[in-house]
């Protein structure tokens, strides 16, 4: 065990957003979720969606799928399943969905605002549809849209085109949550050839070191997606994650650092996520 929890706390207190401070308190100290939800509310818009760079790579005030996904992630991570923000977020997703059931990756409200080079507004359904559907299934909200979105996801997964890059990660998020175990197990098997011998996946067009690893795909024990990985692959990736704590106590991300604020925001998020994953896999004393 070579994780320095105190150093991780210091990192978040020195650099993290208010939101990550409360996530850390909830995760490590079992703090009540109300301050966390209050911090989250600051990113929320009256339409029920989330914006304001809650997802650091789209830095517009308006509601965006990426930011709304982060909000769902934060609530579910803290075990919140009964806050009205969940239902409102689900309604917002349904309102911006396209006729085919999917959701664009970036909405036009990002126009004219700073964002990562890969976050271009568009009007076709994108891979965040998988991730959003996964989170809403997990939260048990969003019944109407979920059926249409799930059909979109199944069409993509069961079509001819093999998935690559982040699509694989988000597709696995969907498959871990959709309550359709035999169909999900078969679809997971079809994704297996995308992974290399270590269970990793190089991100095409990413930075030199950018790879998705077994814990990116399958962060918690007991998930259906764990069937894709051997115990040795998971252990090796946990070793890698443990070793990823930096001198300053925080973790970091490999993707392109295109703005100082976004880079620091991501490090706070990565630090909370790393501690959560290490905890869930028994690498952090509870």
């Amino acid at each position, binding site marked *: 065990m070579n994780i320095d929890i105190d150093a991780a706390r210091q990192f978040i207190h020195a650099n993290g957003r208010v939101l990550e401070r409360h996530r850390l308190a909830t995760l490590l100290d079992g703090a009540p979720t109300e301050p966390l939800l209050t911090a989250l509310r600051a990113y929320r818009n009256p339409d029920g969606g989330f914006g304001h760079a809650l997802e650091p790579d789209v830095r517009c005030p308006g509601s965006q799928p990426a930011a709304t996904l982060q909000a769902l992630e934060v609530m579910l991570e803290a075990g919140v*399943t009964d806050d009205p923000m969940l239902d409102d977020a689900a309604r917002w997703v349904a309102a911006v969905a396209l006729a085919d059931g999917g959701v664009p990756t970036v909405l036009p409200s990002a126009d004219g605002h700073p964002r990562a080079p890969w976050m271009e507004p568009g009007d076709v359904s994108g891979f965040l549809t998988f991730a959003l559907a*996964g989170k809403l*299934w*997990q*939260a*048990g909200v969003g019944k109407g849209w979920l059926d249409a979105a799930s059909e979109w996801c199944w069409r993509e997964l069961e079509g001819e085109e093999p998935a690559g890059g982040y699509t694989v990660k988000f597709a696995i998020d969907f498959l*871990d*949550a*959709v*309550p*359709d*175990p*035999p*169909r*999900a*197990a078969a679809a997971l098997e079809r994704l297996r050839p995308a992974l290399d011998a270590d269970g990793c996946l190089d991100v095409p067009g990413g930075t030199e070191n950018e790879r998705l690893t077994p814990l990116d795909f399958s962060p918690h024990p*007991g*998930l*259906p997606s*764990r*069937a894709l990985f051997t115990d040795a692959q998971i252990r090796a990736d946990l070793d890698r994650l443990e070793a990823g704590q930096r001198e300053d106590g925080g973790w970091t991300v490999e993707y392109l650092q295109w703005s100082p604020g976004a880079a620091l925001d991501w490090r706070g998020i990565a630090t909370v996520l790393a501690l959560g994953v290490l905890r869930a896999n028994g690498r952090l004393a509870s």
Partner: protein
Amino acid sequence: MAASYREYASPRGLEDVVGCLWENDWVRLEPQRVVPDGCVDLVWFGSSGLKVVGADTGPHVVEPLGSPTAGIRLRPGAAGAVLGIPASEVRDQQVDLSLVWGSGTDLTPDVMSAAAPSRRLGLLARAVLRRRATPDPLVVAAARALARPDARVGRVADDLGVSERQLRRRTTDAIGYGPKTLARVARLRRLIALGGDELAVRAVLAGYASQAHMTEEVGRLTGLTPVRFLKDARLTAA
């Protein structure tokens, strides 16, 4: 033949209440012995419909069935919350699910019959997801504590800060039987999980006081001697 039985991990959002989902395509010709595992299952029995199979306190023999089966296994401690009634009301029994959930559910034998076999587990999972149930945390903690080889019911109740009587009531509501039976079932599962051949050693490691104690308890729970029982025993997810 083993390949006809498959287990699937619980979808995200149901991990707290669902141990696994399973299906069995094999149309059995022989009766099958079912032994206690602390779980309540919701099972589609084909023409016999949709049933709650309560937690068992002893062995029972299931007659051969003319159709494939599919089910969802609720974790120890989750059954009461998912069913909406004390789990003790279905102990050692199979009850029509409609009698437990009433007519307010869209999961009916008609819906299940009409569904393609590959969709039936999905329908079961959705129905449980919609119950939005949370297991009784006290019982979950007790089940975890009682699964340790040296566990004693009195100590576990003390550690959890409740009286033995209170622990028994909560456990009976959530699982279907009390902590003593739960401890015996946990011991049986440990015995299966241990593997190896030396029975006397397995008995001690599993937490039995002696080999005689093991023989007596295994006999009560399974109706078999340890040697005969362990020959075919297989650990199912819970």
